[in-house]
């Protein structure tokens, strides 16, 4: 469940935490789109490096590393499946570009996890909801979204309790071959889903009994305003987009093997 730990917000004050969530989101999306556009190691590695100063400025390195560690299993899976499929289609003649593209695709996943982890680690759910509302997203949707984000750590904790309860009944999650291991998680997933549905129904009832949606036009105690740091982040974002478009469409990016030659 350590992947979820990387999404858990902790109230800390840092220049990154104080940035406007809208700007941060655009920044993350810019990185996201760039990561999708590139399929070579060098630009993807550059994207990976961009987020690192943010992590240290926000002082969330511990949680950030934990979220990356949690992504290791999936990353390994992506690497293996890409490598095996390309090896299989080429008749098992392993070449350097093949390994490189598998590494690049894995790196792409790591960049996505990294940037979203930075975003969620430094943005409070309240700010997020506020940002959505001020972006004219209907309150129903922004509320649903912030609630979903807020419940991620709750669900992670619940998953831990369920695992404990099933282990106490002799379930061994790490036992058996690959398929068996996946099936081992059924006794964990079903209670988790059922209790999530129960919880959401209870939440809906509790909200309605507290007159949720009684007024059509809501006002907020706090309003988001852009500051100097936000414009600076916007500048970085624009720079990333411009560089991405330039390198992706107007230059030929060398692969590592070409680089070495």
């Amino acid at each position, binding site marked *: 469940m350590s992947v979820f730990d990387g999404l858990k917000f902790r109230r800390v004050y840092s220049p990154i935490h104080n940035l406007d969530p809208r700007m941060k989101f655009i920044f993350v999306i810019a990185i996201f789109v760039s990561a999708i556009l590139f399929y070579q190691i060098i630009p993807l590695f550059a994207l990976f490096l961009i987020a690192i100063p943010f992590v240290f400025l926000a002082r969330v390195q511990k949680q950030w590393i934990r979220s990356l560690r949690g992504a290791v299993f999936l990353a390994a899976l992506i690497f293996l499946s890409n490598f095996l499929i390309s090896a299989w289609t080429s008749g098992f003649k392993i070449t350097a570009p093949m390994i490189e593209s598998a590494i690049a695709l894995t790196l792409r996943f790591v960049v996505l996890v990294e940037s979203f982890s930075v975003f969620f680690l430094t943005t409070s759910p309240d700010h997020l909801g506020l940002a959505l509302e001020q972006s004219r997203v209907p309150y129903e949707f922004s509320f649903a979204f912030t609630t979903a984000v807020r419940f991620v750590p709750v669900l992670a904790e619940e998953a831990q*309790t369920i695992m404990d*309860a099933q282990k*106490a*009944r*002799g*379930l*061994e999650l790490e036992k058996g071959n690959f398929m068996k291991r996946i099936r081992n998680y059924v006794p964990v997933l079903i209670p988790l889903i*059922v209790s999530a549905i*129960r919880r959401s129904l209870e939440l809906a009832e509790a909200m309605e009994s507290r007159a949720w949606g009684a007024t059509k036009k809501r006002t907020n105690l706090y309003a988001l305003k852009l500051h100097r740091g936000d414009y600076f982040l916007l500048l970085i974002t624009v720079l990333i987009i411009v560089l991405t478009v330039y390198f992706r469409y107007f230059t030929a990016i060398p692969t590592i093997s070409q680089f070495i030659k």
Partner: protein
Amino acid sequence: MLEVKGVHFSYPSGVEALKGVTLTVKNGEFLAIMGQNGAGKTTLVKHFNGLLKPSIGQVLVDGVETTKTSVAALARNVGFVFQNPDHQLFSETVEEEISFALKNFGYDAETVEKRITWALNLLGLTEYRKTSPFMLSGGERKRVALASVLAWDPQILILDEPTIGQDHQQKENLRQFIIQLQSQGKTIVIVTHDIEFVSECNPRVLLMREGKVVADGAGKEILTNPEVLFESSIVLPQITQVFIKLSSLGLPKNIIDVYEARDVLLKTLEAKQG
């Protein structure tokens, strides 16, 4: 036999939940662990079947250190029923739910069948054998969870908040049931806030506060000690409150049982009339 020796435990978040707990639970003993929320009760009992391992100190189950074996191996001797049945129910029928642990422990089909019938009967669930556990009421789900653990007949049984959501009748059944298990020589550990339930059962009581044991002894001693209970934010059993308030009339203060109370009162009345 459960032996806890100087156990300290800290969660990964850094919270120190246990600060040096030592206790021994002998075979056939009935122990109630009480204390305010966050006192470390559930953390302590999670050490009994190895779900948590001590940061410092040792926990031994029948002489085996919990760090040297797996939860699955310990679970054969230590049954643990969690507070919320919804954290473990996942099968399509009550029958399958009960068979889950039995299959995990590798019992053969015939034994599984026998144990299911036995456990259903024991908890009055026979009529729900083919029902989905999700269709049952809260109290019934709790009994299914209990049946699914009792089915493999563990020597030590841990119940976390067994009385929550149970009506009076069910609580009485549970009490009878615990007495029955105790007479078979089983060790029973309950974690609870329900002082009335504990006073009716009169087990050994362990009081915890901020990760430490503050009192450990016979129920009759601890449940009638207002100072110790007050420190743990526990209110005295009602019957004890009455007797403490009437102690100026020469009535004893250490009454926790309604039947005992009746006998004492009758004797006093008879003495006055006589």
